[in-house]
């Protein structure tokens, strides 16, 4: 038997301390020894004593002989889990601590016997396979397998059994080549480990699914049916041809119509331009409405506001600023002339130019209406600066303008063109110096419109509008001699005196006054061109304005840059009143409603209003209406409304409302003079003058 040869079995021998375990090896050892005995002395075995002896115990030779009592004696042994043979002092080198350390845990396991079995369950797959494999060789091996089985069943069978077992093992080994041959035919799949095999399956969670569907609306359809054959086609063509012929006939006639249409179109184009002007008119109205809305408070003031404080200030009045008129393109020009339209009381003309010799250039003529302060009604651009202008009293569309270059021109507002209808040229008696004032005259005997002009060249010229010509007549030549004829003939004084202003008498047609640069005022007649009726040594500087009183036929007023305003009786060579305003006076104007009221503007931006009937010495109103740096250049009273307009050297025109004190008498005094009229006004001024005359005459005497 190969079993004892294995190391495990050896160990089991060593460690067998129990009786139960000892028995089997003892039996085997007996067998081996018996075998050896057979080998050594075959005689004994040949005897066959063993078979007869039967139940005699075989003992090892070194077995202790124990008595019955000793055998029956019981020894108690305790089996522990610790191996008594296991070493307890094993040390091992620890690299970590660099020293030998005792090993605490020692393996206590001792294996005494291992036997690997070679039995198969006959129903198992392996057995079946082997049977199948051995199918053809069964007859050969049948005995052997039986032997094997016998061997295992009876271990004490003699040596041939051992050999058989070896044969069986050999047989298995021998069989392998055979089995390989078998395997060639039969493919053997790998056997799964039936003990350590488990099948596992998993599945991810499936997303829920949802059905969704839609359908587009099918394109709209229609049915169509017809039947066609040759005669239908023929008819269709014939009909079509007839139609075409008809249309051709028609085309001939429309051509004529088209011509007419073209004419109409051209007419239409013409009328279109008219339409624009129509629209412009409407737009103008709209603009005025908008302006009126925007400046509603000013309009209310213009109409209704009365300064209540005047009640308590008997001798003073104020000016209320109303609209300001300004045109962007006239920014750098100064107002050189103002004139109200006598027919349309809300319309006034503004002449723009410059008084500066070095800043001469273009000029402008604007017409503003109180109804629209934002934009001029009419705009005329001129090449030379406008110096003066006058609107005809009856024919309010005729405007005469004097220019810095010496020419005069007449504009017609009715004719919508930017050029003047009449203009003087170098040929037709143009002035050689700036024209300082122009004035319309009453029509002459031939019903021709005519006007006068005065210039620094010393000429006073009458201009007559004849058809399309501007005829001139020199009325008078201003000479210094005429003025200072007495006693100064020796001196070489230039014999021309430059005129700066003039005014025509309201009643006496031929009489007029001329102010000069020398400060003289000449009373002249249109009839006498050679000499002056009178000369007043009025001012020490040039006379800026001279104006007859609106009511009193004898009285006129003059102002000058020599700071003074003077009131004259033309029959007396000395002034009746002299007012010093402490700065150069640019313009002065009589009021149209009272013989005793006048207003003056000065270059420090102030308006001075005087009422001689209230205060003979001082202004009843002195008010700065523009900033001090701005020079006021002109002033005009509106013919009917209680407002004045003042122009300055920045191109602005300011309208101001006169407070009640400035335009009427205080009630207490007025109570007696209820009746109104020119006579009253004349009387009023006459009363003042007579007082003066009375005082003056004694002085003169």
């Amino acid at each position, binding site marked *: 038997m190969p079993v004892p040869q294995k190391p495990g079995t050896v160990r089991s021998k060593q460690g067998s301390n129990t009786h139960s375990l000892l028995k089997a090896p003892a039996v085997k050892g007996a067998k081996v020894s018996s075998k050896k005995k057979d080998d050594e002395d075959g005689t004994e075995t040949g005897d066959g004593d063993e078979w007869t002896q039967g139940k005699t115990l075989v003992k090892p030779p070194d077995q202790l002989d124990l008595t019955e009592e000793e055998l029956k004696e019981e020894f108690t042994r305790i089996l522990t889990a610790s191996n008594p043979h296991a070493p307890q002092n094993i040390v091992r080198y620890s690299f970590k601590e660099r020293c030998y350390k005792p090993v605490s845990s020692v393996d206590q396991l001792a294996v005494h016997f291992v036997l690997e079995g070679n039995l198969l369950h006959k129903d198992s797959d392996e057995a079946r396979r082997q049977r199948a494999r051995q199918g053809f060789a069964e007859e050969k091996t049948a005995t052997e397998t039986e032997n094997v089985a016998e061997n295992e069943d009876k271990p004490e069978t003699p040596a041939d059994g051992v050999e058989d077992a070896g044969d069986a093992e050999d047989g298995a080994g021998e069989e392998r080549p055979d089995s390989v041959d078998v395997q060639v035919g039969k493919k053997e799949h790998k056997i799964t480990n039936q003990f350590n095999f488990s099948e596992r399956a998993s599945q991810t969670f499936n997303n829920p699914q949802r059905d969704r569907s839609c359908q587009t609306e099918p*394109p709209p359809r*229609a*049915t169509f*049916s*017809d039947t*066609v*054959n040759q005669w239908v*086609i*023929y008819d269709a*063509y014939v009909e079509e041809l007839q139609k075409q012929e008809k249309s051709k006939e028609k085309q001939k006639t429309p051509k004529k119509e088209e011509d007419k249409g073209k004419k109409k179109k051209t007419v239409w184009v013409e009328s279109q331009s008219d339409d624009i002007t129509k629209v412009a008119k409407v737009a103008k109205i709209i603009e005025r409405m908008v302006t009126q809305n925007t400046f509603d408070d000013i309009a209310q003031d213009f109409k209704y506001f009365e300064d209540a404080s005047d009640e308590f200030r008997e001798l003073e009045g104020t000016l209320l600023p109303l609209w300001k008129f300004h045109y962007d393109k006239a920014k750098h020009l100064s107002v050189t002339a103002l004139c109200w339209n006598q027919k349309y009381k809300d319309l006034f003309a503004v002449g723009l130019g410059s008084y500066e010799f070095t800043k001469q250039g273009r000029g402008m003529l604007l017409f503003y209406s109180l109804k629209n302060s934002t934009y001029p009604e009419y705009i005329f651009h001129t090449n030379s600066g406008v110096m003066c202008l006058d609107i005809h009293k009856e024919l309010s569309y005729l405007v005469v303008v004097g220019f810095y270059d010496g020419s005069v021109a007449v504009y017609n507002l009715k004719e919508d063109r930017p050029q003047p209808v009449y203009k003087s040229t170098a040929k037709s008696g143009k002035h050689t110096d700036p024209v300082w004032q122009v004035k319309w005259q009453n029509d002459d005997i031939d019903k021709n419109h005519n006007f006068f002009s005065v210039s620094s060249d010393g000429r006073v010229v009458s201009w007559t509008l004849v058809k399309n010509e501007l005829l001139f007549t020199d009325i008078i030549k201003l000479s210094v001699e005429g003025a200072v004829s007495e006693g100064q003939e020796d001196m070489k004084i230039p014999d021309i005196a430059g005129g700066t202003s003039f005014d025509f008498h309201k009643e006496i047609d031929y009489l007029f006054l001329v102010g000069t640069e020398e400060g003289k005022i000449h009373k002249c007649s249109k009839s006498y061109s050679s000499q002056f009726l009178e000369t007043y040594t009025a001012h020490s500087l040039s006379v800026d304005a001279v104006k007859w009183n609106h009511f009193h036929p004898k009285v006129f007023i003059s102002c000058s840059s020599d700071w003074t305003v003077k009131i004259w009786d033309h029959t007396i060579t000395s002034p009746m009143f002299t007012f010093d305003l402490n700065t150069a006076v640019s313009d002065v104007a009589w009021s149209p409603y009272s013989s005793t009221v006048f207003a003056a503007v000065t270059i420090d931006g102030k308006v001075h209003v005087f009422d001689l009937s209230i205060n003979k010495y001082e202004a009843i109103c002195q008010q700065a209406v523009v900033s001090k740096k701005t020079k006021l250049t002109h002033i005009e009273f509106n013919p009917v409304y209680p407002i004045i307009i003042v122009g300055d050297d920045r191109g602005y025109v300011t309208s101001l409302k006169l407070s009640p004190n400035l335009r009427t008498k205080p009630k207490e005094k007025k109570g007696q003079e209820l009746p109104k009229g020119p006579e009253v006004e004349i009387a009023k001024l006459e009363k003042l003058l007579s007082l003066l005359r009375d005082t003056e005459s004694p002085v003169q005497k």
Partner: protein
Amino acid sequence: MAETAESKKEEADYKRLHSFPLIRHTDMPEEMRLETMELCVTACEKFAANNESAARIIKESMDKKFGSSWHVVIGEGFGFEITHEVKNLLYMFFGGSLAVCVWKCS
């Protein structure tokens, strides 16, 4: 003889006069109509003797140009009742003896 000559002349006149395409019914937009009409004319002129080929070429080019599915009928006499997609029907006469009906219905 004279009569026959006259009739011949008339016939010639007729053919000459009636050669232009005459649209009998259509609901196509202007541009499409013109294009289709021109296509029909060229096809019918090209295949004057073979209506089938003409119809095929018209159908195929219409399919290409305006998408499928177009149907074309060409003949000298026929009756029909069709369902078509609106704005996609042209029914015209051509050459004095041919009727062409083109429509789309998919």
